[in-house]
């Protein structure tokens, strides 16, 4: 499989997991601002990694379109990584609050 194919699969799987665990990420306006900030820093840091040749890519494994030195596939890879991280974090927070809520309820009873 090429990097291009895997990158699209990664995005799809990340969205499916976000839905499946009920992270409700895409409903939060704050998420969009946070993602914009993360993407800006991704372009800066990944631009450095690829611009300095720290990381290079197999030319026949990518589409060839590049943003800030890096293949566009990296934006998809980054999307999957960041969406999954934020989703799992949010979900664990929901679980934490629910537990705290249950505890408070049982203590009051």
């Amino acid at each position, binding site marked *: 499989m090429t*990097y291009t194919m895997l990158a699209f699969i990664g995005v799809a799987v990340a969205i499916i997991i976000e839905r499946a665990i009920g992270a409700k990420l895409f409903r939060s306006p704050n998420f969009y601002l*946070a993602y914009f900030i993360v993407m800006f820093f991704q372009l800066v840091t990944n631009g450095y990694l690829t611009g300095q040749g720290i*990381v290079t890519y*197999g030319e026949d494994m990518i589409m060839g379109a590049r943003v800030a030195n890096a293949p566009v596939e990296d934006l998809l890879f980054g999307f999957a990584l960041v969406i999954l991280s*934020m989703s799992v*974090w949010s979900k664990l927070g929901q679980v934490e609050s629910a537990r705290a809520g249950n505890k408070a309820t049982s203590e009051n009873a």
Partner: protein
Amino acid sequence: MFGEWSYMAMLAFVLVASGWLEFAFKIRVWRNPVRLFSTVLLVAPVFIVWDAYAISQGHWFFDKDQILGIYGPLGIPLEEYLFFILIPIASVLTFEGVNSAKAMLDTWLAKREKVSA
């Protein structure tokens, strides 16, 4: 740019550029280690497997002169392991930072409205 520390320099930047949010916005990310490390533990392995596959298939390559040359399991450079730990943390810090900044702004606006009323 930094010789064999070149990749590490980028990781240090990520750590510093995101780390201050914890204190500036009074958020509890580093201070909730159970939730933070659970997040990393659930997310990072998926991408480490992806990384191992990508390296084996020649999707990407690392310049041996710009990494420390320490390799972990699956033949993945140390820097990559740190990447998959630090990027989830930086993402979460940014998300919580924005959440907190928005809450602070709302509180400030509400106070101002009260004063002028």
